[in-house]
């Protein structure tokens, strides 16, 4: 049996309102991924750049073998 059109409309309306609430609070799931947070946060980007340059300088200075990045991480590029 199908739900009453009014009830369905109200449910759809609430779903949109909830999504908009999350988005307006910047808690939308798509902004919670590592890549999305990285793309939106300049502090994050600067930090990664500093670490990447430090690791690169260390490697060149001592000819050390680089460590593998943790699983799921993007390899840093200087």
């Amino acid at each position, binding site marked *: 049996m199908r739900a009453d059109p009014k009830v369905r*409309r109200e449910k759809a309306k609430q779903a949109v309102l909830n999504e908009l609430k999350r988005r307006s609070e910047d808690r939308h799931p798509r902004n919670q991924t590592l890549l999305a947070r990285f793309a939106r946060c300049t502090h994050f980007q600067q930090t990664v750049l500093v670490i990447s340059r430090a690791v690169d300088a260390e490697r060149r200075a001592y000819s050390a073998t*680089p460590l*593998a990045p943790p699983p*799921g991480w993007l390899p840093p590029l200087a």
Partner: protein
Amino acid sequence: MGSGAHLLLPSLDCVPLEYHFHAGERAAIRLVQALLELDIAEPSDWRRVRRDPTDYVQATLNRWIDLHGGKALRRRFCLRLMLSEVVDEYTDAGESDPDGRRLYLFLHPDSAAFVVAGPTLELMAQEHPRLPATFYHLFTGALNRWVRTYDYRDAEDRVQMLREWTEGEEEQYEIADVAASMPACMKQKLLSLRSLRRMAAQARGEASKALIAATLELERTSASVRRPEFTDDMREQLMDTNSPLPAALVVFAENDSIEAQFEDESQSWGEAASEPNLILPLSAFDLKSIRSAFHTLAVVCRTLAAASRLIDLMPGNEKWVTDSEEGHGSASGNRS
């Protein structure tokens, strides 16, 4: 870390394929929430616009216009409805408001609907000598309440201005005599609305009866809500703009002196920004202001739709329709 011997490809599962950035998203989100709370927006449109708040506001406006006579009004009128945080995009007076606390819905014509009134006035004169002028003033008055309608009064003002400019050198210039193109029946005293309603039932011809009924419907719709006054902020932003562009041109006959004055005057209309025909202020945080703006917009749409239907009934206006019924194209029959 570098590349080394252990290169690991990052997993892109659950990473969205595209990102959208909208400068006005905060205002759009707040407005969408308000439109949903007021049941003006349709929840099923949300997926259709791929969850984009700005597109959702646009879809809601389109739906609202369609709900209030969009199809009929597009048959004769070519207008653009815009939503913005400033009234005039070239002014510095409007401060940036990313939250949507101060928004404006405004209406600009792309071209003017063309109406030939002469044959209708002749038809009306057969019913009652005072009916043509009554019809004309009700028709243009109902339109002018919401959009600028260029007619013999504008043409006379222009001719008067030209006469003042050429004072003392009149013989060197040929200035049109607009008053001469006005039918004599237009000088008659107007009938009251009560008399007109009575006439709607008693008219001899079916065509006249339909025209009177459509005129009364247009007047009733147009007058059903008051036009909002300009705020100080709006006046400040519109300080350097020209008067609104006409959304309709009413002539007595094709190629008459009114049309000639309109054509002449229109040469300079693109030189500076024009005041919108209509401005409806609203705040995304004030449900009352949104309800009021959308209610007024509905009245404007219904007024233009009623005017379109009335023009359809007016003899001699069969060909001045837009091609909007095949989409939102240009208005081949309009004057711009």
